[in-house]
């Protein structure tokens, strides 16, 4: 994929070129939104809003990491969603089953490549980490998701969050410490394999 050429075409209004970029980045942006918001539907809305906003403001992109620039739009969309969520009643993370109970592992989220045991373990781990992520202040959450989950470097995170580099370093360190404390405190939520690893470390 010739990213610079696609960006240039998209800046001239070529929607096909932009959609090629969308297909390339949609998983990353959706995962960022999902970890910041902790809700599939809200994450999907935020991702769609982010891509729409990105297309409308594509001319404001002046080079640099396009991934970081896109993550900036999705982070902003997540902040907007969170503000909206505050004004609306909360939506449960898991959908209800037929008998009214919450489903721990929604069927449509299952990865077909995993065995049922692996899927169950992945669900447990995801649940535990998301639980701890949700406990973080949103600005810490965004930094740790972008740096540790998306693998953005400090400069890219600073560009995405629109904050100084020192602030990013500080927030990331504190976010990691809080996550560590949370995961140690709620070890019963972690799958057994990961609990043992924790104990060994």
């Amino acid at each position, binding site marked *: 994929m010739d990213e610079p050429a696609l960006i240039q075409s998209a800046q001239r209004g070529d929607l096909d070129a932009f959609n090629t970029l969308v297909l390339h980045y949609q998983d990353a942006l959706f*995962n960022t939104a999902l970890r910041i918001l902790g809700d599939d539907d809200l994450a999907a809305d935020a991702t769609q809003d982010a891509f729409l906003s990105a297309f*409308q403001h594509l001319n404001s992109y002046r080079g640099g990491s396009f991934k970081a620039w896109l993550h900036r739009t999705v982070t902003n969309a997540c902040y907007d969603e969170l503000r909206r969520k505050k004004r609306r009643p909360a939506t449960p993370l898991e959908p209800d089953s037929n008998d009214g109970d919450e489903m721990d592992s929604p069927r449509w989220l299952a*990865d077909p490549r995993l065995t049922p045991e692996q899927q169950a373990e992945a669900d447990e*781990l995801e649940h535990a980490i998301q639980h701890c992520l949700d406990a973080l202040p949103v600005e810490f959450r965004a930094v740790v998701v972008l740096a*540790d*989950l998306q693998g953005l470097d400090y400069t890219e995170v600073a560009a995405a969050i629109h904050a100084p580099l020192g602030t990013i*370093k500080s927030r990331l360190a504190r976010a990691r410490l809080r996550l560590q404390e949370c*995961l140690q405190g709620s070890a019963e939520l972690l799958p057994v394999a990961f609990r043992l690893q*924790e104990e060994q470390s």
Partner: protein
Amino acid sequence: MNPRDLELLSAYLDGQLNSSDSARLESRLASDESLRAALDNLRATHILFRQLPTRRAPRNFTLTPQMAGIKPPAPRAVPVFRFATAIATFLFVITFVINGLISLSAPSFAAARIPSAAGAAPSTAHQESAPAAQAPALPLAASAPTETSSPRLMSAAPMTTEVPISSGAGSVPRTAGSSTPEMVLKSNAPQVENAQPMNVQRNELSLPFDLEILFGFLAIGFGITTWTLPRNNERSFRKKWNKK
């Protein structure tokens, strides 16, 4: 652990420390067991966090032209039809107004004739010789010079039978009576000749009703085409996009 050490350890994990800071921290880690334990814990958390499964997007987030607010370029014929609509509307309005004014002025044409026929003040040489003909001359005076219209209007008698507007047939004897016999004789010859051109002039003044209707239909037709052409174009653009 103090916040400064925490930041150093976190940056060290990410390889973001410069060589001197990194060397200094490594020497401390070699001697400080608690600092080493803190680094191990942070690393374990970091590794665990990276185990978080990556989800696939539940759907494609590609944008449609409608979402992106993109409209297909308007067909080239649209400005032409827009201009044609404007012209047809303008012509329709003009014909409508002209015909309307003429039909409005027709009753006053007839009404004004009787009182003015009795005592209209002469204003031109011809009017002096034909004072009774002054009244019919008034409405036409706007479009035709008085000097030329006056002799014709003296021949109002034959006209009145043909043009219902100037139905003041009673003015004929008065016209004749108020003129000298010589003048009547003098004016009778051109009157008969002028009767036909007079009618033509009246008919020329009021534009054909068919023309008004034609312009009206043209304006509506062009207007509808101007309105539907971009919409049809947009619909086919969307269909083409959805097929992709």
